[in-house]
């Protein structure tokens, strides 16, 4: 594995509470083995050594699972590689001399906190609206009392693999959160444990999604293409069915 040093121009979005934000230019020289976030670490060390303010960006696990990292890289949430979060993107996919645009995830429901950091707590509130099975701790039946077909378990898992990053919202021209919401609705709707609250769940989560200011879905499909966990758009169709059966099938007002 050979590594090489490349030079890049970065156009990075800088914004604070009091200013509307702008792109600023930076030059970095980095090694192609680095991850994208390590490249930003290098930039920040450079800025700190010049007593300038480092660029704020979200990150934590750096292994593609916590959902903290974000960034729109050259116009694409999580950058150019399919099925890859920003933290797992490596610099070997960039060329010497390239200019890279780095911007935050943009959506009304994701206000910018600083630079590239946005507030995604609206996702938490969608889950709080009904993204759970209402069981208390204790007194549950034996794990093997509920048998689940291997394929069903797999399908539920595929939906449950969502990391809550918000790339689906950032990629959508309507800033819709349908892919995120439908992933949780599907995960639980597919499993026997989720049946009892199935209809009410879809209704409550969808209406919370609307209240949070996410847009409507017009079947653009960009969400699926940009989702780092390759969550299927089929989940949206499933949620729509759940929602409709919720509206027509439930006498209870939600």
């Amino acid at each position: 594995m050979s590594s090489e040093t490349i030079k890049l121009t970065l156009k990075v979005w800088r914004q604070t509470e009091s200013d509307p934000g702008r792109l600023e230019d930076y030059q970095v020289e980095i090694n192609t083995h680095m991850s994208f976030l390590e490249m930003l670490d290098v930039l920040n060390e450079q800025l700190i050594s010049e007593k300038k303010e480092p660029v704020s960006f979200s990150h934590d696990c750096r292994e593609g699972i916590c959902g903290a990292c974000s960034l729109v890289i050259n116009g694409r949430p999580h950058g150019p590689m399919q099925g890859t979060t920003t933290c797992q993107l490596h610099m070997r996919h960039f060329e010497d001399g390239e200019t890279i645009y780095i911007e935050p995830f943009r959506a009304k429901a994701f206000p910018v906190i600083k630079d590239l950091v946005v507030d995604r707590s609206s996702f938490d509130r969608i889950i709080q609206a009904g993204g759970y099975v209402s069981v208390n701790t204790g007194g549950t039946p034996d794990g093997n009392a509920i048998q689940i077909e291997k394929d069903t378990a797999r399908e539920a898992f595929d939906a449950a693999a969502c990391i809550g990053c918000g790339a689906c919202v950032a990629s959508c021209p309507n800033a819709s959160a349908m892919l995120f919401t439908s992933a949780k609705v599907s995960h639980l709707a597919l499993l026997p444990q989720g049946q009892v609250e199935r209809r009410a769940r879809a209704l409550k989560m969808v209406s919370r999604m609307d209240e949070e200011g996410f847009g409507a879905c017009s079947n653009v499909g960009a969400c699926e293409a940009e989702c780092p966990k390759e969550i299927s758009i089929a989940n949206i169709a499933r949620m729509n069915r759940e929602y409709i059966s919720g509206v027509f099938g439930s006498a209870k007002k939600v």
Partner: protein
Amino acid sequence: MSKLDNKVPEGPLSEKWTKYRSEMPLVAPNNKRNIEVIVVGTGLAGASAAATLGELGYQVKAFCFHDSPRRAHSIAAQGGINAAKNYQNDGDSVYRLFYDTIKGGDYRSREGNVHRLAEVSRDIIDQCVAQGVPFAREYGGNLANRSFGGVQVSRTFYARGQTGQQLLLGAYSALSRQISLGSVKMYNRHEMLDLVKVEGKARGIIARNLISGKLERFAAHSVVLATGGYGNVYYLSTNAMGSNVTAAWTAHRRGAYFANPCYCQIHPTCIPVSGDYQSKLTLMSESLRNDGRVWVPKSHVDVEAIRAGEIKPEELPEERRDYYLERIYPAFGNLVPRDVASRAAKYVCDENRGVGSTGLAVYLDFASAIERYGHSEAVSKNEPNASIEKVKEWGTAVVSAKYGNLFEMYEKITGENPYKTPMRIFPAVHYTMGGIWVDYNLETTVPGLFALGEANFSDHGANRLGASALMQGLADGYFVIPYTIGTFLANEIRTPKISPDLPEFFEIENDVRDRIKRLLNVQGSRSVESFHRELGVKIMWEYCGMSRNGEGLKIARDKVRKLRKEFWSNVYVPHTDSDGEEYNPELEKALRVADFFELAELMIIDALDRHESCGGHFREEYATEEGEAQRNDKDYTYVAAWEFNGLEDDPILHKEELVFENVELKTRSYK
């Protein structure tokens, strides 16, 4: 030297917990409504605790520094969670899980706690299934299992390579439900920076709102810490970037003893370091050792040839490879416990047989597994004469179904395809067995302060077995603390709501403000990052890492002190507000690194005190002729619980003698 009361109940081992639980003081539902509990940390341990306490009727305030509880470091756990279900009918039992954990921990954990852990392990699986956690299933619909290192049964439940994610999302959903019901108030992006005691009891915290940067005071009848481990003291580790010791350390400064800080787990299978820009290390789950075989070339000639790219590792003939784990430990082979596997890798690299550009790596090879699975697919497809290409293709599909996401992760990071060429792996800091000292109730030496999950020291002794941290975190949170917190709170039902405006709160708030100002005012010339890297890589990993010796540890202590002084006189923390009242990730990091410095010294002191090798603590002076760890049961069968005594003076050691009534102390052998 004081005697620590571990409060393990009397009676036969297998009856302790059931009996204790049924005789424990309870808090009546109407009283619970008036009692407030602060839970700091909402990873597996904290989220499960906060949700369950909320369900029981307590008024819970939960805190995390993340932007959402779903991002806690627990999310990254890959391999699985143990439970003594014996679904495989392979001879597993509560006793066997208990025994494996005691033995795996190198006889440095408390029997009573470990047995309780093994007992409640079964309830955890039931609970998680009920929440909708999509565990792996067999064709018949039953839950599937796999094996982890250090055991000979198959008791690990998993959800592909993302078990932690699915378990945490389960706990997060239970927590979200309580938030929506109003019994838990969640404070995201709030970092606890100090503990407040009133009349000796833990009654609240000072937290920094990470968005506004303002300090806030929170009061409750009791405080529960579930703030994770401190592996990031080494700078490079498999922990998430934000994992830190601050909450536990401030509790320590305020009187909570810190136990066994030198017990750190070095995980044998991580992607090796590739350069000094590196920010973290990535784990390749231990479950891979079910099917991967570890080897290095037998001869230096082949090592050189591979490094020079003249031979590809996959082309090296079998007889020129040394499958050293299978050779040295035939009974457990590639599935020896972590500490044993890590040290063995170090030894072969010390012999200059390591591979990769740095010589600090060994191979983890799946070629045999691919062939083996391919052949059994051929049999089940009734195609015994299938070509070797077909067999490999089928075998690859089986391996991919089991470990696909891990293989992908490896390829993304290294640019190499592990289906074709063996993975390169090397040990890395992974988990900290040490932590805040707690008794059987999970209560610390500060009354009313409890500690759960990786933040406490409780169940893993000197070495943790794979898939046991998730088990312990959820056991503590779902099934232990909801009961044991009653032992403290039952006496508090007449205590009115605690006010955060008591003078004690203002006093501690001022302390924190001063500390922040001091950091901001240094205005030196070095970044926080550079200090952290030097502390972790150059001092802790070098002298207090995979192996340690007395002389090195003394040097290390000196170096830590010097570097700490430099930190406080030369660090540069960028800011625009002189009180730190703004969103400022560099300040967050600086506060955490400041605490890592103090912890590092305690780890070294503890490692110096322990004149024996056990589990994750390997003192070069105390090894058998074959290089295996040599315990000293006569003098060191104790938990070292350290009391803070200021930074200039040595901490005070309190020993909790470990009494083994049910297992016989043996030399751990995996041969």
